[in-house]
């Protein structure tokens, strides 16, 4: 059963890692992905990134993605934390952890989780630029292709 959190507050990667490993001796590998707000997008300086989401659906959608990862790999732990609200460049947005007895499953599940989060969890990013402009981030074909790798 995955640990899923959607929150405005920062998260603590060391505490989350420790929580996954605590009291266990069956985990051999822990894969992790940390997404971070970049300061420049397409050559344009960013002031902030604002994440909107669909509160009634978000945690359930993430839990369904994590359940799919647990169905595909023998995971011994799985954590997904996604932040919302206004974030500055350099701030972490999302944390994915996947633990397994061996590294192959842990790392594959980590890639899968972030690929599906990007295409199946109800979040929308708005970029606020240093020059005052704003724009909603458009979905990337590359993300759809990355997510599609895991289909079939």
């Amino acid at each position: 059963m995955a640990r899923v959190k959607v929150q405005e507050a920062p998260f603590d990667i060391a505490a989350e890692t420790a929580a996954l490993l605590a009291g266990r001796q069956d985990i051999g590998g822990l894969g992790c992905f940390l997404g971070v707000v970049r300061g420049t997008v397409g050559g344009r300086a960013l002031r902030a990134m604002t994440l909107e989401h669909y509160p009634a659906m978000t945690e359930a959608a993430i839990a369904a993605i994590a359940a799919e990862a647990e169905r595909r790999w023998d995971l011994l732990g799985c954590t997904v934390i996604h932040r919302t609200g206004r974030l500055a460049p350099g701030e972490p947005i999302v944390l994915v952890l996947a633990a397994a007895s061996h590294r192959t499953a842990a790392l594959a599940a980590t890639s899968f989780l972030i690929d599906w989060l990007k295409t199946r969890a109800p979040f929308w990013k708005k970029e606020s630029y240093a020059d005052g402009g704003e724009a909603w981030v458009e979905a990337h074909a590359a993300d759809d292709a990355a997510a599609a790798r895991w289909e079939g």
Partner: protein
Amino acid sequence: MSGYPLHLLYFAWLRERIGAGGETIAVPGEIATLGELRDWLSQRGPGYASAFAAGKTVRAAVNQVFATPETVLHPGDEVAFFPPVTGG
């Protein structure tokens, strides 16, 4: 079938164009599917028309589950419209 109520939610640029994050409305009984609802909403005013303009990629969920234009609606459903997701 006479009119029935739906709880509508709009996110991201759909919310901005429509000018509201959500509303509860009565829709005509002949609207049976999500696709028909979208066509009907797009004629409610310029904000809706802009949000649901032809060629725009709009996704939807019914009762918090991703849905397709063929999804059948029921009284009291929560129907959310939004752009393709961009989290992660």
